[in-house]
């Protein structure tokens, strides 16, 4: 051993030297630390305990404060723990408790013997050290081996030691549930100790246990009740209240008994902590007791008027709990709540915000939102977004339950988007699209708001708004018939700054431009023939068109009158837009086509498939029209009747495809489609990956192009799969549009019965297939019927129809069975409490009943088979004694006798007598027992009625 020597010991640096050195060291601390670590590594091997202890202490310090790994030194700590010196032992145990990981430190078991020795030490401080260490490092093995020692300590005559043993019990129960059988009774006995500190420790343990599984501790309610009534120790009372909060939902009768003492404490106490706990208990668990809630709310008011922000914060928090059941309490404090919105304290502001939103109703939502938006404008970004998030959440709750005026709400959404700090893009996006689909009457306003957002080039510079712009673009495209000026929207959608958008959003923009363009062209050709070079008023031409419309085309399959409305697009448009539209001239069309071509031309080579495909679609259309452009709008002789030109047919068909109504889709609708026979849904698609290579993600796109109508069956398969994917997709907007385009009719509409249109070709094929003409001819035979059945938006209507899905709008949740984890601790507790019952009756009927006591002995022996035999014997004896004592106490409170059919009459008499003396609540007994029997029978037939 050349390393550590006397010299090392002599010149060893103490912890103080180390700390001083660290404080004085200039430059990188880590180099100093690693130098010190080298020293420590040498010193810790020393045979001199002092040297070792100092080294370990330094290491522990570095570990605790600087996060230096010291797992390598675990063995040294164990070695030192056996030292005679209290000082060194303390250092060793501190090191162990701060650095050992019960899961990975494998030398822990070596401590078992030393811990046992120290737990039995006459020096209470040594016992304390061992208990502390045991808490941190105990493993299931350690817990099992040391349970007897801790059990003994539960009866220690030194209050301090007993307290610590009680506190450690929690860890033992958790790691070694069988210890419950040994220790539980003694733990309960400590509830009756005269030292409040000990009772407090026990109640603390029960508070933790009850948090995990309250039901098992219901039989102890009378004990806690006694504490609640008699104790004046605030710590204790707080914990007892916490326990009762857990027990109250399980036992409705508790409320009646508890409310009064709680209110008494509330009136009596001057301690804010206890007062707050009482308030919280009342409002969270006993809110059906009006008078108690009154008292609690009075107290909350006092809290709110304090200067201390802590109390105001907690007061508001309590008010939030009340709000759900007693809104009046919030209303009474309305002014304070509103004022708190501008408090300097974030906590208070957030609570106040919650409360303000709790007050929102149909009648005041407009005013409250106005107030909140004003606050949002003044607030820091974080709180601003908090406010916006809360508004969005509240207003959209239950499918916009509280919104009556959707025009207002839509413009509010638009307003929110313009708030500089707004980061709620995704939520606003979803709501804009959602409202568009659900609320028909809100669409004109949506389009107006969307237009205002789109034409503002400044917004494109703010990435947080991009999602909203995506929704605005989608809305403008989808509901373009409400637009006042389609060319303007095309321009907005194609403005140069859109290059700032992400490609997925850009794709939505292009797709929307496509829709708007189609609409515009469709409108222009549907009015052709009435336009003369002299350019008549648009009004005339609109009405002229009404007649023409009768020849228009409808798909046969669609019997839904609502969607016919779409064919009246142009008419609607004219009536909506106050007829300030410029007459459409060839020139204006040429301008738009030029614009489209110049902006989308470069994108036709884009690397983004979404963008590439969509821009090519648009360009294809433009090209088609260009061919026939000269004299495009002039009615030609050969065009009349059915001889319409091919491009016109095209445009009409595309416009029709686009004008299909889109409804919200229930997230579960996919599940309801019966799987067609012979379809394989779970087949591995790995082969496809190999074929498609890099384009794996875009399989749907590439497939839809190539498929033919004859392979309809396969199409269903694909569409099923796709729609599933797409419903889940986050880029819902763009995909939705794309999806609809492809499988318009497979897309389930919420209010229709489910139909599978097997014979209707997907809209996309129109362009590619030669059969487009034939189909068009078929379709032309149909007449438009709904032209005049169009409903006008009625402003006076109380609330527009909001489309809801039959099966709720929330995401589809598969009924997950909540698996009750078998809690070993509570299981053991129940065993002890109920086993107690069984044996009680037995031992009472025949005190000397040998077989039964033997059986019990056997059982316990089995439980503790791992323990040394003689040890367990002696313990059991004492335990039995205790148990007997305890039982006789139980009798005197007369709780469980009704349940026991084996109890003999003599006992009944005795019990009855004692009960009169010791329990003044006896008079309620029979009545409560009567109604109690039912509830308890439902919960668990074996739990005796302890509550009387």
């Amino acid at each position, binding site marked *: 051993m050349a390393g550590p020597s006397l010299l090392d*010991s*002599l010149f060893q640096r103490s*912890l103080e030297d180390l*700390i001083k050195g660290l404080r004085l060291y200039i430059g990188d601390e880590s180099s100093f630390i690693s130098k010190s670590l080298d020293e420590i590594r040498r010193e810790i091997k020393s045979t*001199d*305990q*002092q*040297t070792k202890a100092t080294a370990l*202490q330094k290491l*522990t*310090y570095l*570990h*605790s*404060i*600087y*996060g*230096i790994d010291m797992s390598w030194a675990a063995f040294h700590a164990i070695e030192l723990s056996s030292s005679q*010196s*209290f*000082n*060194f032992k*303390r250092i060793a145990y*501190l090191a162990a408790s*701060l*650095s050992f*990981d019960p*899961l990975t430190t494998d030398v822990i078991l070596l401590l078992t013997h030393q811990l046992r020795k120290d737990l039995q030490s006459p020096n209470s*401080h040594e016992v*304390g050290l061992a*208990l*502390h260490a045991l*808490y*941190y490092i105990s493993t299931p093995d350690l817990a099992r081996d040391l349970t007897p020692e801790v059990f003994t300590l539960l009866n220690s005559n030194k209050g301090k030691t007993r*307290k*610590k043993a009680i*506190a*450690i019990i*929690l860890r033992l129960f958790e790691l070694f549930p069988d210890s419950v059988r040994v220790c539980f009774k003694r733990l309960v006995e400590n509830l009756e100790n005269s030292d409040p*500190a000990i009772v407090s*420790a026990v109640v*603390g*343990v029960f508070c*933790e246990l009850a*948090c995990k599984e309250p039901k098992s501790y219901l039989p102890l309610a009378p004990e806690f009740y006694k504490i609640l009534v008699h104790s004046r120790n605030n*710590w204790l009372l*707080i*914990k007892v209240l*916490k326990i009762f909060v857990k027990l109250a939902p399980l036992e409705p009768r508790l409320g009646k008994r508890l409310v009064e003492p709680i209110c008494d404490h509330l009136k009596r106490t001057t301690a*804010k*902590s206890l007062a*707050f*706990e009482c308030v919280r208990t009342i409002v969270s668990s006993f809110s059906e007791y009006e008078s108690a809630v009154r008292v609690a709310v009075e107290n909350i008011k006092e809290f709110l008027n304090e200067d201390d*922000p*802590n109390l105001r*914060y*907690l007061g508001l928090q309590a008010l939030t709990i009340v709000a759900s059941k007693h809104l009046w309490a919030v209303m009474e404090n309305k002014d304070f709540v509103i004022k708190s919105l501008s408090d*300097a304290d*974030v*906590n*208070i502001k957030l609570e106040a915000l919650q409360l303000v939103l709790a007050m929102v109703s149909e009648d005041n939502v407009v005013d409250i939102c106005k107030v909140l938006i004003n606050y949002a404008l003044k607030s820091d970004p974080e709180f601003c977004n908090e406010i916006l998030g809360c508004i969005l959440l509240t207003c959209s709750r239950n499918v916009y339950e509280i919104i009556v005026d959707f025009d207002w709400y839509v413009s509010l959404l638009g307003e929110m988007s313009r708030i500089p700090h707004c980061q709620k893009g995704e939520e606003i996006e979803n709501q804009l699209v959602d409202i568009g689909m659900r609320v028909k009457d809100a669409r004109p306003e949506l389009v107006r708001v969307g237009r205002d957002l789109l034409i503002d080039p400044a917004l494109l510079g703010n990435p947080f708004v991009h999602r909203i712009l995506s929704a605005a673009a989608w809305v403008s495209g989808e509901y373009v018939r409400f637009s006042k000026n389609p060319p303007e929207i095309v321009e907005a959608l194609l403005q140069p700054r859109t290059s700032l958008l992400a490609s997925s959003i850009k794709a939505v923009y292009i797709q929307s431009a496509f829709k708007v363009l189609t609409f515009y062209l469709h409108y222009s050709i549907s009015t052709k023939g009435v336009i003369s070079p002299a350019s008549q008023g648009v009004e005339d031409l609109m009405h002229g068109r009404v007649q023409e419309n009768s020849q228009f085309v409808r798909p046969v399959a669609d019997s839904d009158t609502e969607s016919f409305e779409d064919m009246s697009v142009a008419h609607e448009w004219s009536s909506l837009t106050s007829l300030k539209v410029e007459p459409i001239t060839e020139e204006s069309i040429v301008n738009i086509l030029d614009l489209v071509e110049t902006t989308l031309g470069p994108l036709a080579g884009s690397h983004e498939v979404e963008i590439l495909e969509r821009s090519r679609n648009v360009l294809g259309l433009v090209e088609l029209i260009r061919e026939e452009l000269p004299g495009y709008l002039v009615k030609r002789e050969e065009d009349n009747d059915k001889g319409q030109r091919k491009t016109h047919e095209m445009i009409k068909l595309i416009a029709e495809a686009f004008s299909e109504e889109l409804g919200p889709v229930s997230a579960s609708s996919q599940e309801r489609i019966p799987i067609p026979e012979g379809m394989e849904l779970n087949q591995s698609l790995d082969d496809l990956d190999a074929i498609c290579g890099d384009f794996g993600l875009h399989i749907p796109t590439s497939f839809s192009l190539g498929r033919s109508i004859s392979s309809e069956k396969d199409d269903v398969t694909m569409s099923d799969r796709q729609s599933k994917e797409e419903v889940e997709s986050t880029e819902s907007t763009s995909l939705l549009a794309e999806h609809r385009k492809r499988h318009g009719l497979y897309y389930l509409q919420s209010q229709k019965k489910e139909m599978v249109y097997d014979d209707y070709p997907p809209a996309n094929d129109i362009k590619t297939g030669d059969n487009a003409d034939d189909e068009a001819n078929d379709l032309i035979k149909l007449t438009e019927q709904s032209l005049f059945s169009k409903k006008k938006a009625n402003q006076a209507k109380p609330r527009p129809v909001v489309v809801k899905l039959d099966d709720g709008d929330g995401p589809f949740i598969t009924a997950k069975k909540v698996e009750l984890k078998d809690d070993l601790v509570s299981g053991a507790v129940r065993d002890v409490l109920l086993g107690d019952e069984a044996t009680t009756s037995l031992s009472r009927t025949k005190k000397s009943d040998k077989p039964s006591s033997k059986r019990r002995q056997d059982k316990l022996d089995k439980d503790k088979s791992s323990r040394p035999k003689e040890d367990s014997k002696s313990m059991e004896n004492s335990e039995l004694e205790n148990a007997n004592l305890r039982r006789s106490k139980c009798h005197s409170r007369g709780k469980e006798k009704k349940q026991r059919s084996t109890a003999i009459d003599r006992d009944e008499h005795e019990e009855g007598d004692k009960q009169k003396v010791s329990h003044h609540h006896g008079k309620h007994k029979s009545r409560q027992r009567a109604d109690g029997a039912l509830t308890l029978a439902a919960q668990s037939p074996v739990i005796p009625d302890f509550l009387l």
Partner: protein
Amino acid sequence: MIKGVILMNDKGKPRLVKFYDYHPAEKQQELIRRLYGVLSSRAENVSNFVKVDSLFGSDARLVYKTYATLHVLFIFDSSENELAMLDLMQVFVETMDRCFSNVRELDIVFNFNKVHAILDEIILGGQVLETSSSEMVKAVEEISKMERAANSIMAVPSITGWQGR
């Protein structure tokens, strides 16, 4: 239960770290950094509670108080009362004050062991065991006495006894 007690100075340097669940050293350092981040974002004269669910799991709360250059932090869950924790913190600081007669940050820096001893008297395994400051002082003094006694005994066989002073 109480999940942890931390003393740190106003620059985020930890002075006492005690978690009642095992966290590896790096995780502890990370938690301390995050907590310091939380504290430094708080204005003065605001409430002392912060929700720290993101760091310590559901329901976790933090109560902190600043004494001169020192932040005292208690982290706890829903089975503790917020105001009671604030009181307990006061008791803890008072006890340190009595043990070191006018405690300063430096006292805590240099008395690593003793501060742990004080805290261990108050809390065991996340459970509050002692709330009386004088009881704590008594216990801590006993411990120091025993330590001194142990040291003087050790001074005879080993020369390092005097050296440590």
